[in-house]
């Protein structure tokens, strides 16, 4: 591909080094943190209405967590070196800091899943044949004792882990925001608001992906959704998306009102290179439209069928909104020259190592993994009822 530039661009800025892989990395990490926080709504804050989705949220978080580092490993190459940050830890490195937070968070999620699903594991251990029985026995660490006391202790530990996991999840994704926000040489990234925006957008993406998958899975399995749970999640999504979008806009407002030299170039970036991806897509189509849709579903009394369609569509749109937000942050920041007088261009290519096809695969694999996880950690109760998607069931 022939690279091109507008204005005053230094030769070493022609090539965008942080590619679409670095867009996917905060996107997947955001879904991890968001889904975990949603699961904690039930476990820690006792929101009984969200019980049907709590386990699903936790396992989703785990599935995305397993693949959060894949874009990074693909981008950097030599994935066998990934464990070197553990063998020779450098605590003053901002980049390796993510590795430590990630590992710690992984332990918390695995522990919480283990305690949550212990009851199911014992049940499967009891009802399984030879090989499976041994696998479940190993998974249970040889302890198959189950009574009221064990359940009570497990619940307490789950509450503790979920509570402890909330700040860790916030740190996990806030840290990603910090990595960008702390790069003072980049005009588009360097803001202390960055990690706050990242945390809220993470919750939005977590809620969106759960709503989207919850509805989709139930529709495909022809099962009834829990309307109260679904509506409550939609309301939370509405609330968090308002905060996230307002923060994103307030950041721009603040930069524009300051009207320092960086606004001169960022204004051109927004009106030029990012016009479609930022103004039209991120703010226009995928923020304002789902906001209006969720406002209707939250404030107006609508038919359940219409309500569910609107919530489903808005969750899908908000998933794209967060993806566009990541793109605009990561790629947008690199399009601006350090001279503040020019812009470069970026297109990832279709079949490149860090191209569109690879990106789509990396995005889809966690969803396929989630499908596989369902056979080990069942998310929902297997209660077959009539097909409800696009149908009324009041």
């Amino acid at each position: 591909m022939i690279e091109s530039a507008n204005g005053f661009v230094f030769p070493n800025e022609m090539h965008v080094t942080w590619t679409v892989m670095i867009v996917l990395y905060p996107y997947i990490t955001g879904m991890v943190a968001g889904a975990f926080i949603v699961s904690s709504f039930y476990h820690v804050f006792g929101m009984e209405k969200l019980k049907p989705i709590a386990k699903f949220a936790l396992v989703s978080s785990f599935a995305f967590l397993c693949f959060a580092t894949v874009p990074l490993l693909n981008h950097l190459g030599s994935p066998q070196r990934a464990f070197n940050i553990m063998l020779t830890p450098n605590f003053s490195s901002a980049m390796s800091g993510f590795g430590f937070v990630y590992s710690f968070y992984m332990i918390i999620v695995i522990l919480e899943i283990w305690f949550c699903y212990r009851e199911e594991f014992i049940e499967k251990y009891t009802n399984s044949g030879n090989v499976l029985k041994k696998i479940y026995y190993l998974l249970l660490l040889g302890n198959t004792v189950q009574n009221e006391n064990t359940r009570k202790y497990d619940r307490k530990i789950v509450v503790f882990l979920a509570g402890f996991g909330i700040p860790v999840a916030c740190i996990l994704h806030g840290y990603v925001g910090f990595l960008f926000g702390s790069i003072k040489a980049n005009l588009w990234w360097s803001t202390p608001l960055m990690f706050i925006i990242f945390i809220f957008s993470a919750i939005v993406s977590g809620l969106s992906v759960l709503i989207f998958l919850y509805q989709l899975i139930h529709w495909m399995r022809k099962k009834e959704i829990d309307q109260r749970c679904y509506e409550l999640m939609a309301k939370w999504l509405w609330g968090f998306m308002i905060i996230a979008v307002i923060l994103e806009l307030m950041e721009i407002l603040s930069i524009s009102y300051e009207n320092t030299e960086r606004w001169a170039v960022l204004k051109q970036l927004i009106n030029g290179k990012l016009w479609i991806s930022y103004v039209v897509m991120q703010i226009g189509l995928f923020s304002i439209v789902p906001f209006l849709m969720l406002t209707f579903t939250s404030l107006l009394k609508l038919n359940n069928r219409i309500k569910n369609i609107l919530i489903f569509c808005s969750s899908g749109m908000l998933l794209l909104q967060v993806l566009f937000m990541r793109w605009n942050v990561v790629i947008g920041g690199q399009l601006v020259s350090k001279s503040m007088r020019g812009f470069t261009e970026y297109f990832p290519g279709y079949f490149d190592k860090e191209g569109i096809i690879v990106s789509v695969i990396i995005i889809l694999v966690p969803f396929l993994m989630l499908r596989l996880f369902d056979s080990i950690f069942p998310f929902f109760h297997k209660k077959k009822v009539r097909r409800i998607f696009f149908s009324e069931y009041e």
Partner: protein
Amino acid sequence: MLKDKKHIIAIFSVIIIIIFIGVIAGIFFSPESFGKYGHYRWNANNENASLKMVNQNINTCKECHESIYQLHEKDAHYSVPCVDCHGAGNLHVEFHKSGDSTNISAKQLAVMPKEFDFEGCLYCHRKLKARPADFPQVNQEEHYKFLHITDSKTKCIECHNPHEPIFLLTDVKQSRIHPIINRCTECHSKNPEKSFKEVSDHPAIFECKDCHKEVVNDFNQKPHHKYIDCRTCHLYHKENETTGRIYKNGNAKFCLLCHEKKPFKDEKYPPKIDWPSHIGNLSILQKSDEKICLSCHSEQIHKMDLKVKENPHPKNWRPEHKDFAKEKPEMCKRCHTTNECASCHLKNKPQTHNDSWLKGHSIAGEKNKTSCDFCHKQNSCNSCHKVVMPHPKGFDELHKEVVSQKGREVCMKCHKENFCGQCH
């Protein structure tokens, strides 16, 4: 109660054991010499230093590709090493030096890349405002439009030979030094009392026409001036902030860049010829550097007897230039090559070079070696001293090798017997 907590103890024990194993693994698998002088593996320095050189030196390429080397050295790409375009070349050299032509896989690996896409050339020559203006750069779209290239996929190498990109007739390093006039003191020895505005006929910025008025005026009457300017043919290669070299090109191949018929070019514009049938055949050329096009078409370009406006030096300059040349030798060099001084100064030995000069010349040489270079060739020190003089930076570390190769006698020419003992 404890029985009901056993599974909790078990899972946390597993986590603790894994962490413990990790810590132990960190101790055992942490590379040797890691952290000795910082957060890195110290031994990696020596390991990397002892790696076999992959990028081949241009002199290695010269051994087999002498003709290409000569072409490359004389033209504008002389400072671009072979590896920049052709890759490291280690496998290529290894295969051809081994003399084993039966090894098919080694033969395949030895093939050097020759086909280049746009990015190969545009990496350096893409038009960027941030690049120095004197650096040759091209907007591919505009360039093709200007030359009426009909096939936008035409590669640069279809016209430009990477080894000889502008077909210079004379060696690029021998091209005429031409000054850049940015400040008053670049022509005047002192800051002038008057502003240039008060001096009639004094431009603010010197352009070609200010010194070469007659030629530029003549060029402006000719058809070429509508499409190109002076620097299209007389490319300027900046060497430092005050000087550069101007290429006075007249090679037929340079004219053919625009005027040769090619399948990817528009037939009508610019006017094109079949080459070499236009001149009959190439055998009529006496020398390869003959300015064959100019012998018939110079009238369509400009007068070829280029004269500067006037001698920029004052009338009594010849007897007075000594002090100026001593004070600002670099300024003389901007227009005059060192050979020009030597053409007069070699006739008479300087007065300072008396019988005792040989003893004390080291002090003068160390202080201002450029003054020696006016008359003496750069390697003239070497003919007596057998080492680079004055000693370059970092010689302290390298001198051991020089002593072992050339013997102590070389040192003893200048240093006393006990000199080594001062440190050792």
